[in-house]
């Protein structure tokens, strides 16, 4: 309700401003994201984080009018592609963002950037877009997919574990995840197991895991798979004897609400956490809770940073998105206060950033994450060297 009201008042303000001053064309931003069906929690958080940044400025970004067009892809590549085509051809958007899933991003992004539309990814960071196929119109504000796994691998190694059991779904992002983990973890491997995508029952895997007697477990099980695994891990009594590690995706705020206290003590890698101490983050967390009455997740922070990055670029270019060279230049500068602290783009226009380790704790009766250390400082992704930009 509150959001709607904000939306209306923002729209009203925009309408008044444009009639009064007949300003320049608003910058059109297209957002295709997952708002219905499975995984919609992620898309909704990205959208709400983005919208928060717009609302904080009273309906503008960087002091310039924008028009935000949102469309739902229901996690289907076909629908994402149709929505993106419509935005590019009919609506004539200048900038696009929003895709959550890597397979959708691979289907959509190359077409969009070819049409000279800027695409700024707020989540998906497939390796294929980071390396040889990098593009001057493609930016990623979140991470390259492997980054958080690499950080966890480094951390697990630093902790002195040398017999790790690894588990991921049997699909490209799953195998990439374990590859990323092994890029920095070089100790012994008690088991490397690939499960069916969407699997809910892990009893067989847990029995085998107990039998393999590892000294640490690493999982990449996004969404509901992670919730099921974490709960079953606890029910089997394994959380008391073998420490569990993962990337932030399995332990973000939206998952923790459902996993409950079963997730306590799990350590996970993330480029953002709500308790990072910097003024931008404090303002973001406070305003997000006020606007939506829930704790922000990793995805919300990424949506918010995307909007803030666009705001910084529009401010620098005087709201002129038509001059793509200037816009790209301004985006590359990344002259904004990211909620995660220090942030800059590498040569492939993916972030160079610190990656933290967090632990799941109970805070005032709410299960949430707390930063416990830094795994990487100024981490560059492994594919940047293949990008000729």
């Amino acid at each position: 309700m509150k959001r709607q009201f904000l939306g209306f008042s923002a729209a009203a303000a925009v309408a008044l401003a444009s009639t009064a001053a007949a300003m320049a064309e608003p910058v059109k931003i297209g957002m295709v994201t997952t708002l219905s069906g499975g995984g919609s929690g992620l898309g909704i958080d990205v959208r709400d984080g983005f919208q928060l940044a717009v609302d904080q400025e009273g309906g503008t970004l960087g002091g310039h009018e924008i028009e935000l067009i949102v469309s739902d892809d229901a996690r289907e590549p076909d629908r994402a592609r149709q929505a993106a085509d419509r935005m590019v051809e009919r609506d004539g958007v200048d900038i696009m963002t929003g895709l959550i899933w890597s397979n959708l991003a691979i289907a959509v992004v190359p077409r969009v950037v070819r049409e000279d539309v800027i695409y700024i990814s707020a989540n998906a960071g497939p390796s294929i877009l980071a390396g040889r196929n990098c593009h001057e119109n493609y930016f990623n504000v979140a991470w390259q997919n492997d980054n958080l796994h690499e950080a966890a691998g480094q951390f697990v190694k630093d902790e002195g574990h040398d017999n790790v059991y690894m588990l991921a779904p049997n699909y490209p992002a799953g195998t990439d995840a374990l590859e990323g983990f092994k890029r920095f973890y070089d100790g012994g491997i008690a088991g490397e197991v690939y499960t069916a995508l969407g699997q809910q029952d892990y009893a067989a895997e847990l029995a085998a895991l107990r039998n393999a007697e590892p000294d640490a477990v690493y999982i990449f099980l996004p969404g509901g798979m992670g919730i099921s695994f974490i709960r079953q891990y606890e029910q089997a009594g394994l959380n008391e004897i073998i420490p569990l590690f993962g990337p932030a995706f399995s332990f973000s705020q939206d998952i923790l609400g459902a996993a409950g206290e079963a997730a306590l003590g799990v350590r996970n890698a993330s480029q953002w956490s709500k308790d990072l101490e910097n003024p931008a983050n404090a303002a973001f967390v406070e305003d997000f809770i006020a606007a939506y009455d829930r704790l922000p997740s990793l995805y919300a922070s990424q949506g918010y940073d995307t909007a803030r990055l666009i705001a910084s670029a529009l401010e620098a270019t005087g709201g002129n998105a038509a001059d793509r060279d200037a816009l790209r230049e301004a985006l590359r500068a990344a002259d904004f206060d990211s909620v995660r602290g220090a942030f800059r783009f590498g040569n492939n226009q993916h972030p160079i950033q610190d990656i933290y380790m967090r632990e799941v704790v109970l805070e005032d009766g709410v299960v949430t994450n707390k930063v416990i250390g830094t795994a990487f400082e100024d981490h560059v992704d492994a594919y940047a060297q293949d990008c000729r930009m």
Partner: protein
Amino acid sequence: MLLFLEQTLNGLQLGVMLFLMASGLTLIAGIMSFINLAHGSFYMIGAFVAASVAQATGSFMLGLAVALPATAILAMVLESGALNRLYDRDHLDQVLATFGLILFFNELVKIVWGAQPFYLNTPDWLSGSVEIISGVPYPAYRLALIVTGLAVALFLYLLIQRSRLGMLIRAGASNREMVGALGVNIKLLYTLVFGLGALLAALAGVMAGPIYAVQIGMGESILILTFVVVVVGGIGSIRGAFAGALLIGLVDTMGRAYLPDMLRLALPPATADNLGASLASMSIYILMAVILALRPRGLFPAHG
């Protein structure tokens, strides 16, 4: 050996879970000749109702007590208001209509409960694990699942084989025109069977709540396995559903547990892991294909 016993229990537990879903679906398919894709939605609604009641009151059992009748009533209203018009239609129409219902219920749940996954805690007296075989701690809640599933199977057996309602259900599965011609209120019978099926699905959903994620779309993943069970067991047959569910549960679990290791004996580890994972997720479908090739009407066909 201990590990094998534990995996057998795991397979049994998955099996009884599937049985709870499949028994309702097979009755509805057998008696009304109705393909109900929305069966998974009852599973989801049962879980969501139980989770919200349990969160409000702190009692899992109260959640269970509310969710079962609530889902059954919803299903019966839906059946008598809309779905009964579809019984005489083509299977394709039924599939389309009930697929629409899946979308409808998914969005409804999102409007009512939001897009974030929910959680349902295990009741305190079932948390922790039991050592039924020494050296193998087994989660108490999963044991309770097995016991519940077997109890429901016994109850259904008595209901179908020993009661008057069961006699009508069996008669309806064999020849529904004749049952109607003999003066049985077939519409009421259909509504009751539909409600019973939804109740069992809701029971499965509530039981699944503490181990799986309570989230939108949770019904779809189990629905596919359930259809495999129904087809393997023979459409309309409770006995077939029971045998099929245990078989699928065991094969799926054993495949996941042992296939990659067995392949490792013959292949390099990386290939074995990849191939093993793929084969394990295919194993039940291969089993289904084999059974259908040998017995095209399933293990225990219901219609004479």
